[in-house]
């Protein structure tokens, strides 16, 4: 009995409660007419879509730069890469990697600029990050309208100028990652392996000297300073890493979803990712890959299951409203936990 109790304590009550809640959803599913296999597969697919975006939060959390509410900035870089890839007509795996390769330089530049702002506002990063994120979405909206893209699949029909709000990549690189694996439409092996690869890189990085320096900057800046670490430089590195991962994350998301969503779509994207990592047990200055994996799975699981179950139970479509309540409720829950600040 004691052993179970201490085990739960290390897991953290919130996680246990949410895990039990999710489990109950899977149990109820068949009784309200949902196929258990499809439900599980849906959850896994959403996991694959979102995991890298959640992973992108890690570097900044470790370096003490807070939860990256400015995630939209990295997303915008990814969108630029994606759009260029389609403009160039790249398809399949080439299109996917092309998008990533072209997004990276933008991500580095954006990340660097972003870090300059964040380095000047130590202590108030999260609020400012939120608004930097919002402003960047707004500025990119203007960009989408005036940048000289020509691809017929992307610009408005009937001789309009400017990119469409939603661009289908069905004929380009949708499903590129999973295409080489079996059961592509049920279990996203490709995405999971890619995530595993990046997660492994993250884990490895934080064991290197630079990674440990980054952790030190976040955990104990004075100590880091005393050992000769340039705090601002390390923070900048972490911000650039986070932004790059976010750019990669959105491209993976798009290739699974099948659409590139421009304009106001990235506006609120930071919140679900942050909810997920907090649910996974991370705090404002500590996050492990395990947090990312568990958190994404739990969060996406609940987000997929609860609306479907309740919809079938009450015979009304309340998905959108329920999603708002659930995802924000979970963030609130995580924000109001004591411990781990």
């Amino acid at each position, binding site marked *: 009995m004691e052993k179970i109790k201490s085990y739960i304590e290390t897991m953290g009550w919130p996680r246990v409660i949410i895990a039990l809640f999710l489990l109950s959803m899977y149990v109820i599913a068949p009784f309200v007419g949902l196929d258990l296999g499809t439900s599980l597969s849906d959850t896994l697919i959403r996991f694959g879509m979102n995991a890298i975006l959640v992973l992108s939060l890690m570097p900044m959390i470790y370096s003490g730069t807070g939860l990256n509410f400015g995630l939209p900035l990295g997303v915008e870089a990814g969108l630029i890469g994606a759009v260029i890839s389609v403009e160039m007509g790249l398809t399949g795996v080439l299109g996917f990697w092309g998008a990533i390769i072209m997004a990276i330089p933008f991500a580095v530049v954006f990340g660097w600029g972003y870090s300059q702002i964040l380095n000047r506002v130590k202590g108030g990063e*999260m609020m400012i990050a939120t608004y930097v994120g919002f402003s960047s979405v707004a500025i990119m909206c203007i960009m989408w309208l005036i940048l000289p893209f020509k691809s017929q699949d992307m610009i408005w029909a009937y001789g309009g100028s400017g990119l469409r709000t939603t661009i289908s990549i069905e004929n380009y690189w949708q499903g590129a990652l999973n295409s080489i694996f079996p059961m592509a439409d049920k279990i996203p092996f490709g995405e999971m392996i890619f995530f595993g690869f990046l997660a492994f890189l993250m884990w490895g990085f934080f064991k290197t000297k630079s990674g440990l320096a980054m952790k030190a900057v976040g955990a104990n800046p004075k100590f880091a300073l005393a050992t000769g670490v340039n705090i601002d430089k390390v923070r900048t590195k972490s911000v650039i890493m986070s932004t790059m991962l976010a750019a990669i994350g959105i491209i993976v998301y798009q290739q699974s979803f099948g659409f590139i969503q421009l304009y106001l779509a990235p506006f609120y994207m930071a919140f679900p990712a942050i909810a997920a990592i907090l649910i996974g047990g991370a705090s404002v200055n500590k996050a492990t890959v395990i947090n990312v994996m568990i958190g994404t799975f739990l969060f996406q699981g609940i987000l997929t299951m609860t609306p479907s179950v309740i919809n079938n139970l009450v015979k009304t479509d309340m998905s959108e409203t329920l999603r708002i309540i659930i995802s924000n409720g979970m963030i609130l829950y995580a924000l109001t936990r004591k411990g781990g600040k």
Partner: protein
Amino acid sequence: MKNKGKKFLINNIVPIVILIMIVMAIPISGLSGGYLVQEMISRLSRNSFLVLSLIIPVVAGMGLNFGIVLGAMAGQLGLIFITDWRIVGMEGILLAVLISLPIAILLGILGGYILNKAKGREMITSIIMGFFINGVYQLVVLYGMGNIIPMTNKKIILSRGYGIRNAIDLKSIRQVLDKSMVLKIGEFTIPLLTILIIGALCLFIVWFRKTKLGQDMRAIGQDIEIAKSAGIAVERTRILSIVISTVLASIGQIIFLQNIGTMNTYNSHEQIGMFSIAAILIGGATAAKASIPNALGGIVLFHLMFVISPRAGKELVGSAQIGEFFRVFISYGVIALALVLHQWRREQENKAERKKMMDMQLSGGEK
């Protein structure tokens, strides 16, 4: 003398920067001075109550209360009910306020309770809280009303039989406050009653600061631990500050909506949080200090920016759509700028503090 000037500049850097931007943009936009003045008069009368409701939580150390959205939702629920019951005119407004009062108090208590559990990150928590309660509000208004909550006025219900329509015409209470007492100066129309009500709120805030409760809140805002050891019921007082702010916000939202005359059931309250906070930040307030001049001055600056930037954008670039996005960019960019400048100012203040301490230590502690 030079130091004083420098201090003034640093203290008010945000409104000064914004003012410069505005002055540069006015000629580009091509809008006339008279038009702008009249616009500012209506926007002041429309928004002041809401923005002023942000002051008290700042005094109590709760930061910028994005949770005024909760108050706005309470006010809107009040308006939905009086529209359903067809109560009109001044009676309608008063009844809407009366109905939203208990709702606002409850939401304020809930909000305060949640924020107490998130000490140190109140602002970001209040943003998320706003989103969350918005979901609950949707649940009630989009699914509950007409269903579990009986509605009699079919005109405001969606065609599917339950749920409130996206936009409700408030013509029965439109401008009731504004038009009841009007002052005309030259070509400008001033809604006197509304201005008087706002004035009353200002007096209330000034008076409140001097009461024991107000002093308690200031103490908590300065240092929680010291306040606790002085015997102040910290948790309860913090919740009280949020309750007051939420109630004021619900009244403010009703004033706002009666001026506009239409309620966007699912949208009107969303932007209110962002815009009101943008306004008070631009007026020079910070998460730690906010005053009435900050609120009122901020409204003028923010709304000037709001009105001018799409026109300026359109004149510069030639597309109204781009002008719109430009306005969004400016609104959020300005908040980011204000927050950055505020943080920078805090750094300067801390540096000055530390220098003072060091100087005192060096000159030998004279006690």
